């Protein structure tokens, strides 16, 4: 089993990253702020205005460490990539599968079914843990949404083509996010969820979700690259220049489990508060630097939690799930597995 490797988050403005021997060193204004050996890392994420030396970029590419730059709010800006990019034979197979609508459909169905099943699990857990404390109409709404997601799981398996499957997925998202506000248990007008908004997020819950999705996206991308798949060629998401479609595909099944649940616990345990966010004139809601740090610490801790992988039947950390799913997808594309076993969380 692969070891769960760590990620460095650089949140200080004007930081400079350089390579020293086999270490990455983070400097701020000429002073060393921290260092870590490269072999313990699988990613470095810079928020804001951090720079990196070419030697470090080269070493990261060589060691399969994904080095990305995100805006302070978590929007993807750029990444460093080396000369090699995965296994050319695997990538060719991946492109052929993406062009073969029957093969792509089978993968897409599994991804959407797993996503809806995981969304349903999030609702079910809320019903089980707090159902009794909910108002009757809230309880009814959650139960109704749970039923409809079960229905989606069943229907998507019969979807005749990818567009239909995408439509069913959109419907599932509407049902799920329609009930999402019932999962927030703090009595605070600052944390009312009235539907998903992005670019920019227009409320605190959306700002938190968008930030977590960006961090999850980085992890999915680096997981795909580390098994040799091309993150840009997806099945569910259409190709678009600069878009990591396959990373977005992989994220779908993991979002409810990794990001949504974490966002809910941060809010419900009051680990984020209303004043951890700033509202700009245009209505866009942004997280403060301290809040981003707190969320990243929670995210890293969450990745260390162990679960049982439903397909491999092995105990793994949440942080390794993206990597394992990439491996399973690569195996399916190579023909070693009949179908892609998307991650279903129980």
């Amino acid at each position: 089993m692969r070891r769960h490797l760590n990620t460095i988050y650089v949140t200080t403005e004007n930081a400079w990253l350089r390579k020293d021997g086999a270490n990455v060193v983070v400097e701020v204004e000429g002073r060393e702020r921290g260092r870590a050996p490269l072999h313990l890392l699988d990613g470095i994420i810079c928020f804001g205005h951090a720079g990196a030396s070419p030697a470090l970029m080269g070493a990261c590419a060589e060691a399969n460490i994904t080095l990305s730059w995100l805006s302070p709010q978590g929007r993807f800006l750029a990444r460093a990539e080396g000369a090699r990019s995965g296994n050319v034979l695997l990538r060719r197979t991946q492109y052929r599968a993406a062009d073969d609508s029957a093969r792509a459909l089978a993968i897409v169905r599994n991804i959407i079914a797993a996503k809806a099943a995981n969304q349903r699990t999030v609702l079910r857990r809320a019903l089980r843990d707090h159902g009794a404390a909910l108002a009757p109409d809230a309880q009814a709404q959650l139960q109704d949404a749970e039923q409809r997601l079960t229905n989606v799981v069943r229907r998507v398996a019969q979807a005749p083509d990818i567009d239909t499957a995408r439509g069913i997925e959109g419907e599932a998202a509407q049902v799920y996010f329609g009930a999402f506000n019932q999962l927030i248990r703090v009595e605070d007008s600052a944390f009312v969820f009235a539907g998903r908004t992005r670019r920019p997020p227009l409320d605190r819950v959306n700002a938190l979700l968008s930030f977590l999705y960006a961090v999850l996206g980085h992890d999915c991308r680096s997981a795909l690259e580390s098994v040799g798949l091309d993150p840009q060629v997806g099945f569910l998401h259409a190709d678009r220049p600069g878009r990591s479609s396959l990373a977005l595909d992989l994220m779908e099944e993991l979002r409810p489990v990794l990001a949504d649940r974490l966002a809910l616990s941060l809010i419900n345990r009051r680990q984020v508060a209303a004043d951890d966010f700033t509202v700009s004139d245009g209505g866009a809601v942004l997280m403060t630097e301290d809040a981003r740090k707190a969320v990243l610490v929670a995210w890293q801790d969450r990745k260390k939690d162990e679960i049982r992988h439903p397909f491999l039947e092995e105990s793994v950390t949440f942080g390794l799930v993206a990597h394992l799913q990439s491996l399973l997808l690569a195996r399916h594309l190579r023909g070693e597995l009949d179908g892609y076993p998307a991650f279903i969380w129980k």
Partner: protein
Amino acid sequence: MLVLITYDVNTEDAAGRRRLRRVARACLDFGQRVQHSVFECDVDPARWAELRARLIAEADTAKDSLRFYQLGAKGRQRIEHVGAKPVLDLDGPLLF
């Protein structure tokens, strides 16, 4: 697995000072300096073989002393730190 590495390198001559730098450099590539000549290295068995071979090649075993303490899989829990020079938990969240 966590390995604690300590060393005394004889620095009477220029060659000794060079060995000291090179031994420290090897440890730093794999782990974290916790005191002047003390390093904690979190390495898998293959990396440990590599590091150990490199250290032995760099040192002059007639003059220098190297000590390796295998702290095992739960090594981190056996460490207590008191006083100055706080060290980084390389397993924990790394935010800079």
